[in-house]
Every structure is written in C-alpha cells, then in structure tokens.
C-alpha cells in the first residue's frame, strides 16, 4: 500500500511539473467578455519566431500575423504596399524610395520610423551568416538609409527585377529585441517567442509544451483592426484527428485538409471545404546531369535521347493523374511556373502540352530505333528501356501516381520499377550523385518566378544547390541572369516565357500537375473568408473574417 501511495505522490508531482511549467510568454492579457475567438487547427508548430533562422511555414504564418513588410502579395498575385504607402525607383534602377504610412505603431505603442526599417535591412545585408533566412532576399542590396522619419531608400548594385517580391519577405522586427547579439549563433539561438511587431495580431501566449498559440487583435493596426478578437492555433499530429476536430467543432478553420479526406469533409454539416488553385507543382525528373559531372552519372543512357524523353511525355495521361491521384483537386501541369504566379502573368500560355497518346509514344520509339523484344521491352544497340522510378517515401499520393505511370510506360515498351526512397537519400541521389533515372517530386513555388527558374540553372547543380535534374543549358543560364535585372515587367515576361519553353522542350522535368490548396471552415461560426491562392488562412483573409451573428 505504501508503494501505491508513493506512486500516487510521484504522479501528482509529475502532473504539477507538466502543467505548472509557465508558458514562454506572459500570461494572457485581460480579455473582454466573451471574445470572438477563431480556432485554427494545424499540423505543425513554429520552432522559432526569429526571422533570422526560420524554416517552417508555421513560423512564416506567425510572421505574417505579427510583423509587417514594406510590400505584400495581394489576393490577385500583384504586390501592394503594406508599411509603404508608395514606392518609386530611380531611372538607373539602383535606388528604391519607400514612403512609409504615417502613424504606424509597434505593439508596445511606440511609433515606427524609417530609421528602424533601415536598421533591419542593413542588418540583413551586413550579417548574412546571422540572418540566414533573410540573406537570400537582399543579394545585390548595398545599403538602406532613412532620409527622414517616413522615407526609406534602398541602394542596389544592379537593377533588381523582383524588388517587390524580395521586400515582401523582409519582416521588419523591433530593433531593440535584436541589437544585442554579437555572433550568428547567438542571434539564431534567440527564439523570439514574445515578438513585438506592427502586424494585425499581437502574441499573447505561446506555449511550446502544450503547442498552443493565442493572439489578440491589434486595435491600433494601421489598416484597421480585424473583426475578430482573438486567434487560437492548436497543433495536431495526425490529419484524422484534425478532420475530426473540425467535424465536432473543436476548431473553426483548417488550412491543410488531406486529398484523401477532402470529399468526406465536403459532406460535413456546417463545414465548407474549399479547393483553391495553389502554387505547388509535381514533376517527373529525368536525369539530365552532364556526362562530365563528377561523380559520373549512373542512369539508363537512353534518357539522353530526346526522342525517348518525348515518348515518356507522350505516354503520361496527366489529366487521369489529377482525377485519380488528386481526386480532381488540381490541374495538369505544363511548365515549371504554375498558372497562379503573378495572377497568371508568368505562366506561358503559348506552350502546347504533348497530348497523351500511347500509339504515338510507340511510334516515336519505333522510329528512333527502339525495337520491342519478346518480353515487350524495347531495346536499341543493347540498351534496354528499363528504368528506376523513385519517389520520396514521405508523400502519400506518389505511390499511386507511380503505379499508374508504370502501367502506361509499359504499354509503350518502357519498363519502370516504382520504388519509395527515404527523402534524404533521394536528395543525395539526385544531387550531387546523379544516380537515378526517373524521380517523382514536387516544389512549393515562390510567388515570384525567380526561384523556380533558378532550380534549372547549371549553377545550382552543386552540393547544397537546388537543381536535382542536372539540366545544363548555357543559353538558359544567361537568360536567367538577365531576367534578374529587367525592371520592365514586359521585358522580363518575355525572357521568362522563353526559359519556360527551353525547359519544356528539353524535358529535364515533365511537370505532371499543379495541386490545389485544400482548406475548410465552420460556416455556423464564421463567414467572409477571402478565397484566393493565398489561402483562406492568410492574414488578409483573417483581417476581414466575421463571426456569424
């Protein structure tokens, strides 16, 4: 009996320890009676709220709510001023001037001034090792300065074509919070769980042990306060529980409904499921690494034959993949820039996709000299069309896609063997080892075309670079560098479209589909969400959402 008492005491002590640990921030502020609280369920938790070292999308969701940027992407894909009321660029394209809105306040009541914004940008420029995540956005920036308390100038060493996009990722932090750190390590170890920003919501509680975040509406927000009083973020570790929480009303909004559950969620009472065109793409990578790559590529040599690549493209029924794998929640893919980027401005509508036609695929291969053997597999000069078809094991819908693709390709006389591979091993296999034939993988594209275009440059096919196909085309590389400095959007569009055609015709990638964003919310609790490619959970949407009366 004494042992049991001891056990009970031990458990009680543990409970005290588990629950009594204070959250990372101060206790919640005094809330008004019955605040209107929107509860969001999500599958992650921000590991840091320090923009210097943030890699998870959850961190960026919080940055959007708590901080502000000079410009931001709007629902139609264009850029609009946020902290900046207006912006202009000098004739030589090297000096950008931002006029800040008057009367912007930090969450602590202090006024924001241009010196503080300049301090931020100069810190990113001068300490790229410390501000690791910001450093990529300020390449080519030389200096920022405040000419008066409301005017900011940024100097660049060359004209920057995507300046609006770049500054839309530079979250302006409260300088006193960040001034003290002397080494990159100290700066990055600062988790900043009580951020002071200028954004529409203020952090009141961030409990990393319970994984709950409470944010109050900022009544002094410069664009007018949100119509709800409070935002609550609760973490779920599996999608079934998340969907169940939405069904029983434990949460009001989920920004990540899995493909497989979407139909079921659409049928829930008082729940609206929305399928919005997004910015992600899924592609088939064909090993295009140069022959002189070190280490030498390990692949089926037939992949270097453009006719074989064309035949593979002809044998893939992309619409079928969308209908079966995504259950209709997406569109078939063509080029590496999804149709939503810049509201469709960067999508090359002139590219005609190869039509699915198995007879044509067989004819192309026959003409190219690949004859069918007795086992139905084609062969030319001793090279059999037998290939590996690998995909990362953490993606739930790739196995189905791989099986469907294997069946079509078999009918064209190409034998592929689907295989799930650990994603870390697959990174190494594609770059730098070049040891693969075909890989299914995807990207979440940036709002600007620059990143997706960079993935195809030969400069990125180095260890730590982003190229996985190994595509090498000097004309493409040259255009890539040129488009970075084209301030005239029409001129840049022409260059981008030309690059998209090169990739489409050379086929290091066959883009399979663009997946939709699947989200859902409780219609009995909230209304007036903004349905657009930036999602119903974007800060713009949360600013206008209202409780159902």
């Amino acid at each position, binding site marked *: 009996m004494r042992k049991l008492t001891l056990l009970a005491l031990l458990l009680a002590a543990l409970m005290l320890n588990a629950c009594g640990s204070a959250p990372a921030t101060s206790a919640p502020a005094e809330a008004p009676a019955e605040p209107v609280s929107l509860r969001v369920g999500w599958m992650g938790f921000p590991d840091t709220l320090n923009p210097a070292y943030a890699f998870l999308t959850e961190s960026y969701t919080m940055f959007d709510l708590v901080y502000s940027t000079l410009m931001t992407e709007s629902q139609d894909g264009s850029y609009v001023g946020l902290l900046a009321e207006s912006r202009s660029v000098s004739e030589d394209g090297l000096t950008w001037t931002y006029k800040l809105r008057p009367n912007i306040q930090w969450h602590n009541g202090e006024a924001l001034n241009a010196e503080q914004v300049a301090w931020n940008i100069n810190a990113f420029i001068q300490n790229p090792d410390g501000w690791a*995540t910001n450093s990529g956005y300020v*390449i080519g920036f030389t200096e920022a300065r405040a000419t008066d308390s409301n005017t900011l100038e940024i100097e660049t060493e060359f004209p920057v074509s995507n300046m609006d996009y770049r500054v839309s*990722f530079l979250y302006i932090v409260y300088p006193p919070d960040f001034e003290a750190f002397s080494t990159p390590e100290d700066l990055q170890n600062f988790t900043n769980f009580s951020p002071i920003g200028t954004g529409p919501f203020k952090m009141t509680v961030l409990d990393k042990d319970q994984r*709950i975040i*409470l944010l109050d509406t900022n009544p002094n927000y410069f664009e007018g306060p949100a119509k709800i009083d409070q935002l609550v973020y*609760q973490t779920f*570790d599996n999608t*079934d*529980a998340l969907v169940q929480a939405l069904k029983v009303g434990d949460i009001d909004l989920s920004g990540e409904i899995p493909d497989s559950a979407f139909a079921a969620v659409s049928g829930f009472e008082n729940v609206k499921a929305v399928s919005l065109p997004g910015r992600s793409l899924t592609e088939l990578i064909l090993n295009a690494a140069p022959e002189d790559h070190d280490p030498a590529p390990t692949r089926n040599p037939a992949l270097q034959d453009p006719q074989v690549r064309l035949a593979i493209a002809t044998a893939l029924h992309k619409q079928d993949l969308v209908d079966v794998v995504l259950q209709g929640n997406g569109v078939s893919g063509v080029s590496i820039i999804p149709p939503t980027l810049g509201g469709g401005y960067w999508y090359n509508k002139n590219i005609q996709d190869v039509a699915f036609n198995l007879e044509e695929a067989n004819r192309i291969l026959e003409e190219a000299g690949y004859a069918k053997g007795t086992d139905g597999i084609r062969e030319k000069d001793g090279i059999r069309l037998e290939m590996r078809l690998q995909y990362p094991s953490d993606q739930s819908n790739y196995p189905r896609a791989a099986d469907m693709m294997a069946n079509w390709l078999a009918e064209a006389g190409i034998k592929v063997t689907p295989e799930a591979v*650990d994603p870390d091993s697959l990174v190494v296999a594609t770059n730098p080892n070049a040891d693969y034939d075909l890989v299914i993988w995807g990207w979440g594209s940036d709002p600007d075309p620059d990143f997706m275009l960079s993935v195809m440059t030969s400069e990125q096919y180095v260890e730590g670079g982003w190229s996985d196909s190994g595509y090498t085309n000097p004309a493409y590389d040259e255009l890539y560098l040129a488009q970075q400095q084209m301030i005239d959007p029409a001129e840049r569009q022409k260059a981008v479209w030309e690059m998209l055609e090169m990739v489409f015709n050379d086929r290091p990638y066959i883009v399979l589909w663009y997946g939709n964003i699947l989200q859902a919310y409780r219609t009995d609790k909230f209304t007036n969400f903004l349905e657009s490619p930036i999602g119903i959970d974007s800060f713009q949407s949360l600013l206008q959402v209202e409780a159902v009366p």
Partner: protein
Amino acid sequence: MTKQDYLLRKISLALFTILVVALVNFLLFRILPGDPVRAVIGRNVKISAEVQASLRQQFGLDKPVFPDQFLATMKQWASGNLGVSWSLRKPVSEILLSKLGNTLLLIGLGQVFSILLGILLGLLAGWKHKTGWDVAALTFSLVAWAMPTFWLGIILLAAGSAWLGLPTGGILSPQNVGKPLHTVLPDLAKHLVLPTLTLTILYLGEYMLIMRSSILEVLGEDYILTAKAKGLSQWQVLWRHGLKNAILPIVTMIALNLGFTVSGAIYIETVFSYDGLGKLFQTALTKQDYPLLQGAFLLLAVSVIFANLLADLLYTALDPRIKAN
C-alpha cells in the same frame, strides 16, 4: 560474493553499457544518408550554398567525424553538456526535460491502470480457471494485446469526441493554457481520458496473461495444498500464498516496461496530438538533428539500463532464493 560486490558489479556493468551505447549512437546517426543542414532547413527556397556552408561550420560538420567531431562531442558530454539542438535551437537537456513530464504523466497513468486491472483480471482468470470468467478475460486480453495501437486510438478518438464530447487532442484547452494547475485539473483530466484508456487497453492484455499463467503455476504448488489443508479461507490462500509468489514475473515486466516508458508511446502521442518524448524522437530523426538525437537516445538507454538494474535489485529483495545464492 558479498552483496556489495554484487551491487558494484551490476552498477559498473550498467555504466559500461551506457558508455558503449553512447559511442554506438554517435556513429549510428552519422552513417545515415543525407545532409543534416539540408534536413534542418528543409526544401527552403532562399538559403544559398554559402549560408549553408556557414551553418555547416557552425555545427562543426565541416570537420572530419574522426577525430574532430568525436572529440568535440566527448568533451561536451564529459562536462555534462548535451549540446544545443540544431533545429529547435535550445539546449538539448532543456528540451528533453520539458517533454519528459508530459510523457511520464501519460504513460505513468496508463501503466498504473493497466497493472492494477491486469493483475486483478489475471488473478480472477487463474482462480476461476476454465470457467466463463476465464475464457472472457483471456479472449479480451488476447484481442486487446493484438490490436494495432493507431487503429484503436483513432476509433476511441472518433467515438469519444463525437459521443462524449471529449477533446480531439492536446493536453489542455487553449483557454486554459498558462493558468494555475488547480483551476485546470478537470480540463487536464478530460484530455487524458482517451489516451490513457487506449494505453490501458493495450498494456492490460500483457499483464493479465502473465499474471494468469503465473498464478496458475503457483496454485498447483504443494504449499498451496498445505495452506488449504490448514483450513485457510480461499481468499487468504490466494492473497497470502498465491499472489505474493505469483507477482515476481510481473515485477520484472513492470520494471522493464518502465524503462521503455521514456521512449514515449509514439503512436498514442501522434493520434492524440500529445506532445511527448516519442514525438520528439521522430522529429529529431527526420531533421537529422545529431545533438538532439544523441541526447534523446542517451536518455532512452540510461532509462532502460537502470530499469534493468532496478529489476535485478528488486528481484534480490523479493525472492529469497536469489538472496540465498
């Protein structure tokens, strides 16, 4: 061998095992394919190769595994420091401690209920051998033991949240976070019902089966016959002579299970979005966060080895035959 010698030998063996495990862990994670810097930053779009190189340098990954990385890690451990997690950017010991409380609370409750119920049911089944009671308890235990954790959890979650209004996940409701413990106890209890129930059902079968076979064996012994012949009541026979002897295998099993407790019940934690050590182990592995992985596996190894040591020591205390030898 004196008792002190025996103890000393057991403890030094345990320490030696921990040392070996720590060394194996150091090597094991470095054999994994992939690049930890890439794993930590994910497919993040704006980290240049130069910044990645600077992070690699910060983590000490630019130096050879032997001797540099190895010596640096050993030096750190020798000073009692487990390092700083690369992905969470906090001291490893702090992270482990914060999750340990959650895990011990959940698994502790589950273990206590399953041990008590398991012993009781096992005792009942053994005592009422070959009756309806026995068959029912045996069937229930076998089914419970064989049920997939994830499946049982999801079924209980769906039923409990829809019919009983129990929470779908987490440890506390958002509005109660940060409040004093005594005011949120009912909410905490509500959150613990489903995961504890799942754990209890899953562990119960194992304890019940061992207890049943153990009591059956004991009840066939001569001294039980003697006790009955002395005119003791059935209850006295069972309690004083049966249970005390039959409990030994259960004690071993409890001690061993407690060792594995700190590894968390990863499936249960995942189903009920319960933020414990199991979930942490998984995150550390996917992020290839060497300091966190090493720390977590060291904690796991130490707990298992000490639980084994505890089982050995308990056995010496409980079983007079071992004491005599």
